[in-house]
């Protein structure tokens, strides 16, 4: 599983997640449908799309926080789809999450020092070698937090400080893959820039792969090596430079800032193009599901992608 000579850290093939609800109706919601994704070592991959397009679900599937309904997950080419319990622990140490809501990411009864050092507590390393105080101070320094904050409770810190603390906790076990689930969406603009800079500088220093989930196309284009655009549970376009030259009609319309009706997720889109109902360029051919094709260095799921000269 390599691409351009760089090994992949995490790969998903044919991933799908269907939720079933209702005692009698058994209504289904197709959150993720037939997604192939590959994230390379040291790469920043941004997933963009509107709310409800399946970005977070896909991220959590890759992290094994949600079990996929279909498809396989590979970590360093090892199939981890069916791993459970103790078999998964070594992989858990290497894959971390930075949550969307920093104020919800910490146990309100714990001081920050305990929360940041929780990875060591979970993995039974809390009493080892007595050097943990130094590790805590290093993590705080690395994420730009005042050491005084270690003894504070989460409600005594601001959103930006908590997000830094969440990054410190995610870094504690020296992971090689971090899922950043809209880490800046709840922060104000000046703090957003600082958090992004922190993430990028950390990534440069330790070659961590980042899966960056965001609504913000400009941010995605700025920080990511590759961007995947999600719509109705599918990745409909993937590659670099999407903001400048979007090829899928959906990517073009979100770059222009158009709003869309939320697709009906109770209908599986394995028979027609997922964007067919709202596509301005639809033809008869669009009643069949397009396969993913390579087009000018992009992976695109469309019968009529726009071609730039």
């Amino acid at each position, binding site marked *: 599983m390599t691409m351009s000579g760089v090994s992949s850290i995490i790969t998903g093939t044919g991933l799908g997640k269907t939720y079933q609800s209702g005692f009698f109706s058994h209504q289904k919601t197709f959150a993720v449908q037939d997604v192939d994704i590959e994230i390379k070592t040291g790469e920043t991959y941004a997933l963009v799309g509107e709310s409800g397009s399946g970005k977070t679900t896909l991220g959590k599937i890759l992290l094994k926080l949600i079990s996929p309904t279909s498809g396989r997950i590979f970590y360093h080419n090892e199939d981890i789809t069916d791993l459970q319990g103790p078999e998964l622990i070594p992989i858990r140490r290497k894959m971390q999450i930075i949550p969307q809501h920093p104020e919800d990411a910490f146990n309100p009864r714990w001081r920050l020092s305990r929360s940041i050092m*929780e990875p060591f507590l979970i*993995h039974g390393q809390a009493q080892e070698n007595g050097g943990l105080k130094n590790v805590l101070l290093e993590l705080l320094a690395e994420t730009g937090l005042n050491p005084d904050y270690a003894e504070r409770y989460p409600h005594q810190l601001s959103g930006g400080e908590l997000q830094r603390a969440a990054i410190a906790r995610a870094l504690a076990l020296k992971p090689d893959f971090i899922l950043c689930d809209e880490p800046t969406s709840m922060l104000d603009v000046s703090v957003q820039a600082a958090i992004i800079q922190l993430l990028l500088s950390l990534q440069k220093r330790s070659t961590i792969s980042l899966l960056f989930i965001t609504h913000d196309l400009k941010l995605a284009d700025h920080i990511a090596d590759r961007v995947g655009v999600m719509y109705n549970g599918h990745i409909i376009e993937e590659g670099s430079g999407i903001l400048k030259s979007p090829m899928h009609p959906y990517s073009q319309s979100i770059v222009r800032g158009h709003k869309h009706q939320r697709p009906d997720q109770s209908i599986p889109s394995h028979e027609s193009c997922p964007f067919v109902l709202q596509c301005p360029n639809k033809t008869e051919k669009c009643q069949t599901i397009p396969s993913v094709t390579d087009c000018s260095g992009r992976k695109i799921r469309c019968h009529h992608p726009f071609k730039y000269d």
Partner: protein
Amino acid sequence: MSSTVYIPISDQGFCALGMRVLKKRPLLVFGLIILILMCLMAVFAPYIAPHDPYEQSLENRFLPPSTEYPLGTDQFGRCVLSRAIYGSQPSLIIAVVSTILVVIIGLLVGLCAGYYRRVDGLLMRITDIMLAFPSMVVTLALVGIMGPGVPSIILALALPGWAKYARVVRSSTMSIKNRGFVESARALGAKNRYILFRHILPNVLAPVMEIATLGLGSKIIMIAGLGFLGLGIQVPTPEWGNILNQGLPLLYKAPLIALSAGALIMAFVLATNLIGSEIRDLMDPMSDSVKI
């Protein structure tokens, strides 16, 4: 790198901490003082009581309060104060042990039902069945089957009581298990047991402790009710309920018999209610009381 850290509560001077708690939460301190005094009274009853509570003397029937008998004597010439003091022992033991039992059962059932969806349906239907029966009727039936006595009264009070705790714990567990810090712990590789006991349990304890302290008071009233019906601790063993039962027909002749037990029951219920209403605030990490 040097760091100035917050002084943990345990490192602060005990007297200074006590004064700060008293200043911020006088009702809590008042409730605790009453509760502690009552516990001390139960434990040191043989040293405090002026007379043997079983000692009868027909010559001394219905004596008014005096220095020898501070609250007078009852119809058998027994010291009313001594009986009220000794009566705290079975009342407090039954109330405390049965409350601990219902809290433990309610916590276990509620945590399992809220966290593990597979057992939720089964455990909650059992809980619904327990809730469907009026608790006093179940208690009366169980005491009737097992016979009066401390262990049977404890069981009879605990068996119908756990269901409401289980309901509260379940709903709190279901909301906490979807919080970000639980998901982060899971992503870090935490096992279910770790998540349940380190993250979820401490966060569901506040409402449980509040109900439990309020429940202590209601348990005392139930024990007194059982004693009043003749199903509680049997005479001549002193217990607040049966003292009240014996004193009521004599309310005009020797009012202090019923009033002594009644006042102690009222004081205990008042103390537990005060503590219960304060404890939720005290256990809330967002409250200023954490920083006392």
